[in-house]
């Protein structure tokens, strides 16, 4: 963290977003303590930083699982019934949108568009995109990933 701060030693308020991005990259997610440290470093009130960080979807205040599942809820995926995929994942993992499984292996999030509308519905797990799946494929995918992590 100190190294990242050093990179932004000019303390310009406009470095807020890149600074938060780098810290999140390194830490996985943002915490109250991080916001406070950034606030002291850039001399921006904590609440302004919190406002910015909650405005953008890219910043998160929750730990992610080893496998981070994003289910697209954009218009096209919505029409292709992405909600049934979401429900199936929630059922399989016993996890809610925006939270992590107890074993910290899987986390679930809905996003608004991943730009793959022709492939709807789209699901992204870490950096792999899945498309044209059927709901019944999901169980197999999750089982494989779980085995992989053990």
């Amino acid at each position: 963290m100190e190294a990242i701060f050093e990179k932004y030693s000019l303390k310009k308020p406009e470095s807020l977003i890149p600074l938060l991005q780098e810290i999140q990259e390194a830490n996985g997610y943002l915490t109250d303590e991080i916001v406070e440290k950034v606030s002291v470093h850039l001399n921006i009130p904590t609440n302004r930083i919190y406002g910015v960080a909650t405005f953008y979807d890219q910043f998160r205040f929750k730990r992610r699982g080893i496998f981070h599942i994003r289910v697209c809820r954009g218009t096209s995926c919505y029409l292709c019934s992405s909600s049934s995929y979401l429900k199936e994942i929630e059922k399989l993992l016993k996890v809610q949108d925006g939270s992590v499984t107890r074993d910290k292996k899987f986390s679930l999030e809905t996003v608004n568009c991943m730009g793959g509308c022709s492939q709807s519905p789209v699901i992204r797990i870490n950096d792999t995109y899945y498309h044209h799946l059927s709901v019944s494929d999901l169980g197999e995918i999750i089982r494989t990933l779980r085995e992989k992590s053990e």
Partner: protein
Amino acid sequence: MLLTIEINGQQVSAKRGETILTVLNRIGVKVPTLCFFGSLSPTGSCRMCVVEVEGLTHLVPACSHQVEEWMQIHTHSPRVLKARKALVELLLANHPDDCLYCDRNGSCELQDLSEELQVRERRYPSSHKPVQIDKTCASIQRDPGKCVLCGRCSRVCTEIIGISAIDSVGRGSSTRIGTSYNKGLNYHACVKCGQCIMSCPTAALTERKSLPRVIEALGNPDLYPVVQFSPTVPGAIAEEFGLKSNKDIMNILRSALKKIGFRQSFDVSLASDITIMEEAALFLERWPRKTTLFTSCCPSWVRYIEVFRPEFVEYLSPVKSPQQIMGALIKQYITSSAGIKSEKVFVVSVMPCTSKKTEADVEGNGTRSVDAVITIRELVKLIRLLGIDLNNLEPEPAENAFSISSSSGRLFGVSGGHLEGLMRSIHFLNTGQELNPIKINDLRGLKPKKESRMRINKLPVNVVAVNGLANAIALMDEIAAGRDDIHIVEVMACPGGCINGGGQKIGTDEKMLKSRMKALYDIDEEEIVKVAHKNPTLNELFDKFLSKPNSERNREVLHKDRSKIISE
């Protein structure tokens, strides 16, 4: 450069760069506004002030749209009225229908708008969900369920106070005005000045009520309720009940307080006089060596320094605020010398301030100097509740010597006033002569920053009075950057000082501020005792209860130990 525009068929000249709203206000055309607020930067987010401009397909917000040559503007066309009405209806769809139970019933801008635009039915189904009320803070209560997201509070908190304790959190339809990490207002940052309450159009922000506790204490036969009030209270009560703010109003107020059930009433200005004597002694002990003294009468300012600038705590005057001093005097001396046990005394203070509520809660080592703090708004409610008719009250003169205070003490209510009173006494104590002229015009007026370069015994004393905490923060940055020519800094967190405090009447405007300020300066003009060191009661207090200014005894009673804060 002047240009001509047409408003509702009338030719009007306007300056380039002006907003449409400025022009409308000048020519007396009233359009409703909601998110627009005084000197704050316009955001155009509520769209209530939309007007129709010929040639443009969409309606434009008057508060943030600049005039252009030959604009033809319609401010009340059917299309505009329909749009405004729909906006209010949409706001109401997200608002609880509990006006009858609401703290701001009768003083709510949303109510006014819905009346003005004649909303008579619910066209949009209610989507209001109950939200948890934030009661973490002892001064301010937040009910996000009543928030209309106008953003006035967050802009006041950022632009005028400079703290940003509340700000927009989230995005789109889930945006709300919130605190860092949604942890409640008391978690940190907020200085409790209450300016957000003054700017809130609805009851999303209100003071934490101490009134129920006060009413209970008044009815408890085992307690001896007494009241102390800030020098801004008589004027504010006169304003609220349509009385003349003259010398009598003080006695009418005393009479009303007695009717309410308080056994004795005290003017906090006496404690302000003590503050002046203590701070003058502290200052003269060090001066003319290099020294900087920050006044400590404003609890929001003290909190700012303690939380954000601990490196400056050593500059902060160790003297408690007048409210706490007066509370201590009442409990430890005035009532006890009349034979009343201090446990039985219930001290209520009436303040134009929300920050004092927290101060009274936090300070004191186990024993409270002040038991409850109510704002002026709460006092007005209490007077109305008890059906006291101020127009037909016999003025009641003060019954004890502790009601005597100099007009310097009263000036604490206005920015620059504390400093003016302090300089008068410093001058006298150092030279043995009264300051001549006794008025310090440099320190008067509503300017955010007032500097005065004075000379005492031919040596310079530079003093600065700042109001609006954001301006004080800028001054602190100057001092941190090396500015060292200032001897005394007076800060009041609210713009204008306590006359515009967070506990004053909602809807205070500049005209009201000016008349409140003038009322205090008029008292100074008329009063015979104009300086703290000539207050006869102080001599008695210094003889019998306290000791010489800045003596060990006085430090024990009047000073606050800030060493703890430094080590934290």
